[in-house]
């Protein structure tokens, strides 16, 4: 595989990690966040700026970056989660806007809108990205199936009932939000490692929206569904670079085309591609069996 294909896989993997972070927040606790790109920015900027300023190895500053992401998420969550659900999306969105302007304000360290470039090259970035993607997916899967995860899902479906069983829903939501944000932070660090340039525009509101859209496309409650959709929806616009229809290059319409795809899904499969189902090998085998059984029956 050449660098182009490796790069695309890395982009998709980073998207999967980000969407997994969003998945944990939305699917486990039913919160709709539109500011997850801000956590990517926080982690990425802290990791690379601190490493450069003090000459500390990246692995240490990455941990610091993730920790700060988690802390910010905690600070945002504590007041916000006391409010009505509807406020959450808008406040997280405002938080994202604020982060972008803070990065521009601190241009002495972050180089502002011109972007923080010359991030040192790291060996085996590809394997680091793929490895962490697998790890994050496994973590999310384990979390979803753990006692904590099941409690979260119960809380999501019926908050009043969960409260009456003595579950502290408020604290649970905070924990979930912090975990999800740290995972998004990880995606931000990998984004920086891969691109070696980070700009405030790269972590804009659009990215937060995109991650949320990917999640719904695959199915809000399906980890495999959202991971697959994050992977492929990141990839599909890229394939349109060379596609031409009636002599018009679809290159400029990359964004439009995935938007239209999502509208189709909303209209015809309102619960996302996989809905609440998980994609498993067993399910796949069973699916093909059914498929062939149908064909034979037709014969």
């Amino acid at each position: 595989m050449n660098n182009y294909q490796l790069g695309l896989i890395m982009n998709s993997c980073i998207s999967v990690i980000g969407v997994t972070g969003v998945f944990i927040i939305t699917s486990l606790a039913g919160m709709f966040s539109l500011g997850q790109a801000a956590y990517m920015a926080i982690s990425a900027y802290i990791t690379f700026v601190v490493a450069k300023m003090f000459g500390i190895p990246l692995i240490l500053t990455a941990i610091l970056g993730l920790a700060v992401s988690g802390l910010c998420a905690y600070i945002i969550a504590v007041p916000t989660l006391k409010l009505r659900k509807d406020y959450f999306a808008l406040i997280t969105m405002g938080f994202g806007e604020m982060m972008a302007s803070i990065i521009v304000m601190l241009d002495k360290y972050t180089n502002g809108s011109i972007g923080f470039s010359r991030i040192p090259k790291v060996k085996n970035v590809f394997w680091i990205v793929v490895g962490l993607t697998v790890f994050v997916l496994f973590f999310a899967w384990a979390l979803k199936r753990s006692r904590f995860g099941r409690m979260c899902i119960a809380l999501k479906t019926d908050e009043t009932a969960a409260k009456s069983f003595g579950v502290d829903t408020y604290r649970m939501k905070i924990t979930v939000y912090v975990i999800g944000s740290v995972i998004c932070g990880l995606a931000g660090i990998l984004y920086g490692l891969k691109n070696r340039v980070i700009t405030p525009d790269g972590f804009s509101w659009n990215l937060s929206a995109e991650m949320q859209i990917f999640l719904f496309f695959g199915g809000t409650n399906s980890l495999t569904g959202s991971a697959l959709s994050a992977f492929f929806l990141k990839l599909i616009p890229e394939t349109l670079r060379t596609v031409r229809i009636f002599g018009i290059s679809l290159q400029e319409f990359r964004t439009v085309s995935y938007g239209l795809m999502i509208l189709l899904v909303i209209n015809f499969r309102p619960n996302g591609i996989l809905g609440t189902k998980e994609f498993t090998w067993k399910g796949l085998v069973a699916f093909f069996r059914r498929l062939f059984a149908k064909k034979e029956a037709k014969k």
Partner: protein
Amino acid sequence: MKKTISCLLVLLVAFAVFANGAQEVKSDGPIKIGSIQDLSGSASNAGQPNAWGAEYAVKVINENGGINGRMIEIYTQDCKNDVTEGLNAYHKLVDEINVCAIIGPALSNPASAWVELAGEDQVPIVGHFMDEICTTNPDNGATYEYMFLCEPSCAQQAEDLAEYAIKELGSKKFAVLYNPSNAFAKAQTDPFVKYVVAQGLEVSANETFGWADKDYSAQALKIVASGADTVFLSDYLAQMVIAYDALRDAGFTGKVVGANTMAPPFANQVKNTVYDCYFLQNYDMLNPSVGNINELVTAHMQATGTTSPQVNVGFGWDAVLVLTEAMKKAKDPTDGAELASLIAQTKDLELSGGVKITMNASHRTDTMGMYIATYDADKNMVIVGYEKVE
């Protein structure tokens, strides 16, 4: 049924991405070059004419016999003024299409991600990414071997304008109003302020606005109160218009100087009377007697239905010209390393604007200055000067 279709779709996509491997380059076949421009996204009004200019230049060169008999094929990719998209486009061109050189975009953000890659892959990139970080490593001052800038850098441009304001307009006290969230504006404003201060003059107000701001009247009032006689504006056209109107509405009667985004249709969009505004221009676009820039912008307006002359058409043309001039001298016009060393030796090459370019050691040019333009009473753009700070 639906599931079968979706499965097939997924497979198809995977196939489309990974099936087309690298293509062989024949030694007598066409020469492939790439062009990465902002075809979509917020800077598409600059990127589309830029792409057109480069493609038009290639067409003209091919009609005149190509590079020593070999035709050029140009592959234009969209980078959306985004780092990730820019890297995708770069790798697509270098790893899949196997281009030997790339025409870069007019904005610096995507270009700053290629500076080292271009060296590793030995692919020269020629373009108008005017921020110095795209040609020089600010950490050690080393020149990026494969990055080439074909216009004065942003510091040079800002200095030219400041020099003109100080010398010709007699400005004594400056104020700046710009959008620090826009890399283009920031890269010009910082050196402008630096230069003015270095000349012993005062910058009495340093005001900013953001993407989401639409009303700059508070900033304008502050500038008026600071007593500045000249204001420097920098951002894209829409914001420049708002800024100019805000200043005049607030009672500012001094001079307004600014980036080249003040070119037409600026004068037709502002609501106040246009007077005393001076701005940078790369070319004397409306003058048919210098270079061929007037011919280019006219051809572009006719071909695409654009209503005002676009400076970026000249950018695309110039970058192709610099690249192909090196190709003509090269033994192997597809050898990136040879091309880069030849581009670095570019000397006295006349570009579309009629000015000659000579590459210096930092892969930028010291030989080009900037035109200063203004508007007359009928809102026509008039060139009033040509400034080059030594």
